[in-house]
């Protein structure tokens, strides 16, 4: 596409079929302790 570059991203709709194992970190445990963000967390599911 000439004017649009689409980055590779995890397809969230697709993740509805395979996700939800719950192994990932709780949201504010690692550093901030005063806000909630989940974007910086890693998925820990071994088979996606």
């Amino acid at each position, binding site marked *: 596409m000439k004017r649009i570059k689409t980055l590779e991203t995890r397809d969230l709709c697709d993740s509805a079929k395979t996700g939800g194992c*719950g192994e990932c970190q709780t949201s504010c445990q690692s550093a*901030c302790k005063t806000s*909630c963000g989940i974007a*910086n967390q890693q998925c820990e599911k071994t088979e996606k």
Partner: protein
Amino acid sequence: MIHRYTLDDLHIVLDVNSGSVHVVDEVAYDVIGLYDEGRTREEIIPALLEEYAGRDDVTKADLEDCCDDVEELKVQGKLFSPDTFEPLAGELKNRSAGVVKALCLHVAHTCNLNCSYCFASQGKYHGDRAVMSFEVGKQALDFLMDHSGTRRNLEVDFFGGEPLMNWQVVKDLVAYARSVEKARGKNFRFTLTTNGVLIDDDVIDFANREMHNVVLSLDGRKEVHDRFRVDYAGKGSWETIVPKFQKLVQARNNKGYYMRGTFTHHNPDFLEDIKVMLDLGFTELSMEPVVCAADDPSALTAEDRELVKRQYEDLARLMRARRQEGRPFTFYHYMIDLTGGPCVYKRLSGCGSGTEYMAVTPWGDLYPCHQFVGEEKFKLGDVWHGVTSPEVQEEFAACNVYARPECRGCWARLYCSGGCAANAYHATGSVKGVYEQGCDLFRKRMECAIALEAERTLGED
């Protein structure tokens, strides 16, 4: 829903529901914007031909191609994708009802610093000073293992007050967990959050062997840090702790830590504090806006928040420049993995406070998270009897992206998962409220994080 924004010369379009990120030029930016307003291609093309009159590269045929591309992305589910997630909201929590995977252990409700901005009221959480016994801590770890179902990775944060004021108990609890984790099929990940005053060689050796992560409290510039982070004689702690932090971080090979600061009304120009941290040799950084009552003298004003937003942009520029110079650093809120980030269940289900994550007081009471400790009406139960106030837990279990009407119209909802229940409660009186001032800053952080990552990805290509 889409969200369009520009940071410096980078035009970005996010497709909220699919998570797609598109980097576009200004023509495509306008085309997508007009589609978003409900305009048809028959309206869009003449409008943009007029707007870009005089530009040789913007022809009717070219705009036709651009419209084709947008419509193709829509067919692929990467633009204007519908929100089909509401039926899934809460499913992860329902599926894992009763499963706990993380505890914040308040091993010391006391502190050797007297920081007036402390949300925990100098570590006492509006109560009496206390330290956790080994027996209470062991029972908390047993409670966690007993209630963690099939979860393998268990997180435990040694928190306070100041956890190093009860260091032997911390060490004994880690030893206990290590002695049983294999047989129980678990993997403990410990975190230590400390103000640094009591760090010595023993703490460094032990923490670097056993702690998955250490969170070190430093506010940046000496005068900024020492404004709040003082001992009971009123003496600033910067001079004492900085060499200790440097020694600890160096000994753990500059990994697995966060230098965590708080900025307030007194230093909304927090980028200067980040630069000081960098000058001191620290590269894993987290700076947080103060959370306090609106009438507190430390609270950020509307004017401060505008400055803070500009600072977030400048921070992104500094990170870009340092990356290009081969001197990268990490800012906690700008870490984003576009290909390997959380699944949609996680993005919908909220932070997990009160369900999979709980805080434990020195005497073994359970609260939904560390920020609710001391709010008696939120007490969930204790580590011996488990959750004995199911009505409190149900309130937290019901928190998800769709629980707050305001979130439905927000493009960032799948990056924050509905926000912090404690901030919502303190700002509005309800855990299902919205802490709009925090949301405002969060959205700016996400714009910067995504722009930085997009730029990095394009640079690799």
